[in-house]
Structures are given as structure tokens and as C-alpha cells.
């Protein structure tokens, strides 16, 4: 069989495979591939994640989670904008505004420690939520997939720690110099 035929066959099968799934699933899988958490996963692994993920839609101003509540799931923004805020008695400090493709609440994938900030939808927002215990269950059924996600999580936490260290060093140059 010629190389051209092989390529044609491959294309045909890929097209047929795509038709088998609904466009919604396809969108979701394509979206997941763009999220740094899942960019190392294969198509089959993404399908596994897509099967356990929940889609939720929030209205303008609706709270996704509140500061102090136990964390249970990580959220990915499929569409819309989310503000991360800290509320104090008299004021509210907006820490960040996240847009499509961003994720938040990822520490909930490790344990149920209380959320450190509020997450509020700034416009009608579609999110995907990955529940901690579903990821834990994945450890037994699809160990490799779960391992990849935990690795991404560990890398991200490491990056944040490094950034925090740098920030601390920038804020207190004299103390650090003294220590050295």
C-alpha cells in the first residue's frame, strides 16, 4: 500500500472518530488540551478527564466559592471572567481577574483546607470542575493520567513557591543581606 493511501486512510479514520463524539465533547477535549494542567495528556487520557469533569454555569456576580469554605474541586474557566477577591470587614481586595483557559482553586485537589479567597463570576461564566475524590479515584483506575496531573500540580506549586521566595527577597533586601 502506498504512503498516500495510508495517509488517506488515517485521515478518514480520524474524521470518522471525530464524528462519533458530540461537538460538545470535542470542544471540551480541545479546551482541556490548552490548559497547562492537561497539556501533557494524550487524547485517550483527556477523554478520561472529560468523563469525570462537571460543567457549571454561573451568573454575573454569583459566588463560585467562598473564603473559609472547605475546598473540594478545582475550576477551569471555559468562558467568561472570574474575580478572585479577599473580603475584609470594611473592604474587598481584588487579587486577580481570570479569563478563559485559566484555572483556580487547584489546592482543593490536595486536601480540604479552607479556601483562601472568594471566587466570583464577573460575567456569565462557564466552568469545568474537577472534584478531588474523582482525581483520587483515577489514581487506581488510570494511574498514569492521575500521575501526570499530580506532577503538573507539583510543578505549579514549586513555581509559585519560587516566585514567593523572590517576592520576599525583593520586599526585604536588608534582612536577606544580613542573613548572608
Amino acid at each position, binding site marked *: 500500500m502506498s504512503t498516500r493511501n495510508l495517509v488517506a486512510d488515517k485521515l478518514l479514520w480520524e474524521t470518522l472518530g471525530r464524528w462519533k463524539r458530540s461537538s460538545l465533547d470535542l470542544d471540551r477535549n480541545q479546551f482541556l488540551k490548552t490548559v497547562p494542567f492537561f497539556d501533557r495528556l494524550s487524547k485517550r487520557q483527556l477523554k478520561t478527564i472529560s*468523563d469525570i469533569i*462537571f460543567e*457549571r454555569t454561573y451568573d454575573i456576580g454569583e459566588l463560585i466559592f*467562598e473564603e473559609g469554605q*472547605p475546598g*473540594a*474541586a478545582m475550576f477551569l474557566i471555559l468562558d467568561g471572567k472570574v474575580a478572585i477577591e479577599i473580603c475584609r470587614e470594611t473592604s474587598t481586595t481584588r487579587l486577580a481577574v481570570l479569563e478563559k483557559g485559566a484555572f483556580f482553586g487547584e489546592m482543593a485537589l490536595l486536601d480540604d483546607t479552607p479556601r483562601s479567597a472568594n471566587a466570583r463570576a464577573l460575567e456569565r461564566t462557564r466552568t469545568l470542575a474537577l472534584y478531588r475524590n474523582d482525581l483520587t479515584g483515577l489514581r487506581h483506575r488510570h494511574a498514569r493520567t492521575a500521575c501526570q496531573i499530580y506532577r503538573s500540580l507539583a510543578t505549579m506549586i514549586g513555581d509559585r513557591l519560587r516566585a514567593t521566595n523572590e517576592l520576599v527577597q525583593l520586599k526585604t533586601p536588608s534582612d536577606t543581606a544580613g542573613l548572608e
Partner: protein
Amino acid sequence: MSNGQEFEEQERERTLRRKVFYLTFATLALILGGFLVWNLRILILPIIVGALLAFLFRPVKDSFRVRWLPHELQVLCSFAVIGIVLFFAFNTLRKHIPDEEQKLEFKVRLKYKLNERYRQLVSRSEGKSTTVGPLIEKQVGPLMDKVNQALELNPHERDLFLRYAAGYNGKPPIQSKFVDYFWANQKTGKYVIPEKTPASAAPLTTQTGPASTQPPPAAEGTSLESKLSAWMLAPLIFVFLGFDNGQIRRFFVSLVPNRYFELSLTVLDDLDDAIGRYLRGTLLECFLVGLTLTLGLILLGIPWGIAVAIGVVSGLLNAIPFLGTAIALVIGVGYALIAENIRPLIPGLNPNDLALYVLILVVLVHIIDDVVFQPFVLGSAVNVHPLVVVIAIIGGSLVMGLWGMLFAIPTVVVVKTAVATLFKELKAYRII
């Protein structure tokens, strides 16, 4: 009116519409649900049993994982494994479930042996003391009469027994010794002479034949048919829930408002974990009790087939607290009373005292269950107060008979865990 105010007004109207819609929908769903539950109540038990089996066997299904095999095929393979194991287990057990002939034989033997032992007891006590013998006769005599009445073969059964005694339905004739027991039983009279009853009561006692107590055959047939077709639902529920890959949970979670999304996931998971640990723990405990009892009975010399049958029944009934042990005792001692030519594997045991040994064995197994199995297998899964247990069992038996007794404690555990988990998480999520 500014754009902002107009938007707020629209949102307020939308919220109101949503509330009215939800309220109407919930009311209609409740009415329809209630109507369906009442009219289809015959299906409730098969659905519960099927769902419970699917829930219990889920770890077996989950542990059967082959990466390259599609989910549906994995489930089918795990079902095939479960099916093969259950088929062989039932097939083995079926061989030791007494058929019509054996049932009649057991009845005859039990009646004969009980009377023989009673007479031995009376004659022994009469030889020792002049007061104990009559006292036993006065106290135990009426009970023995009732037992004899219960074990009495009706004319049809008597006729059938005599046919089996000569060899009937392709079966070998019943041992001559048991036929002798049958004739001896016919001569057994009453131990207590009944007081004269009023003439009006006589027709009542004579009318207790099968014709007066049994429902009309046609009605019975219909009821049996509908029951059978209802029970066909149990394996279907089991299979379909087995194929479920979390879709049912996802559907219900999708109905939950955003505010309770994480809470609902946590509550469902905690419930699943707690109830799963309790039910699977109970199943394992029942298995261990059944196994211990079976081994004990084999050591006492009871044939292994009978020992396994008694062990399986006692193990299953062990799920009913208190009553399970009592039923195991009745079955075990009942068999020990009719058993003959028993050779205990433990040296020094007197085969004539088999009933006493079985009694000791059942008590011993009960103690082992309390001290070893329950703490290790169930741990602190769910603690239910003994008073609640007693009330639940009585309540369950009143509502649904034996099934009610069997499901009473799991139901209490489910409700208790659900309420406790819900309150804990509602507080943690600052909703209450």
C-alpha cells in the same frame, strides 16, 4: 429608567419566575412520585435489592481493569466472573437443600427424635427424684404436644411419605429405620390430656385444613406471577447500575444549585464511603460467621454439605442482630437432634450430646463475632444504639416481614449517616 435598573428589574422577575417554576415542578414531582411509589410498591424491594447488590459488587467491578478494554467489556467480564462464582455457589448449595422427600423424612425424624429424647429425660428424672419427673411433664408436656402438632404430617403428606418409602418418582426407597420412625410417630399420643372444650369451639378446630387457610388458586397464581415479574427487575437494575460510569451521580449533581455544588459532591462521597464500609463490612462479617460455624459443625462431625448449608443460612441471617443468632441456634440444634451416626472429629466428644455441643458452638461463634469480627471488620463504621436496633427490627418485621427485618438496620444506618454527614457538611460550608 437607566440600563442598570432595568437589568435589575429583569433579574428580579426572572428570580420570581424561577421560584414559581421550581415550586410547581417540585409539587408535581412529589404528587406523581407518591402516586407511582404507592402503585408500584411491589417493585420497591426488587429495585432496592438490585441496587444494593450493584453497590456491594462495585469494588469487584472496579478492580477488574484492563487498560485497552472498553468500559462496557470490562463490566461484562466482571459480571461474568461474579456470575460464574454465584452459579457454582448456588449449584453446590442447591444439592444440599432438601427436596420434597427429604423434607418429609426430616419431619418424621425430628418428631421421632424429639419424643424419644423427651421420654428419656422424663424417665431419667423419675429415676432420680419423685418430684422432678412430674414437674417436667407438667411444664414441657404441653410444649411437646404443640411441637408434635406442628410436625404432624397431613393426610396428603402421609400418603406421599408411604409412596416414597416404597420408592417413588425414580427415587430409591426411604431407609426402613425411618419408616419405623413414621409408624412409631403414628402411635405418639398427647402428653397432656386436654380439658373439655365448649361444643361451639369444636367446628373451628376441625376447619383448619389447607382449603380454609389457602387463598384461591387463581388469585395466588396471579400474585406469584406479578411477584416473579417484579423480581425480574432486580438483575436488570444490577446490570444497568453496573454499566453506570458515574452518569447517574453526574445527572443528580447537575440538578443541584451552584451554591451547593461542592457540598453535594462531598456529602454524596462521604455517604458512599460510610455506607459502603458498613455494608461491605457486614457482608464480610456474615461470611466469617458462616465460615466459622461451618468449620465448627464439620469438627463436630456433621456432614460437610449440611454444615455448609447451615453455615450459609446462619451467616446470611447474622445480618439481623440478636435474631440471627437465635435462628442459627434453632437450625443447628434442630439438625443435631435428628442427626444419627455422627462421628465427631474432635476426640472425646459424646455423639449423644451433639445438641449441647452445637449450642456451645453457636454461643462461641457469637462471642467471637462480638469480640473479634465486628471490631476488626466493621471497626467504628457506624454505631447504632441497641434499643434503636430492637425497635428497627420489630418495626421492619411489622412493615415488610423477614425482608423488613433484614433491611431494618442498613436503613437505620443509611438514614443516620445521611443526616450526620449532611449536618456536618452544611456547617462546614456555612450554610447553617
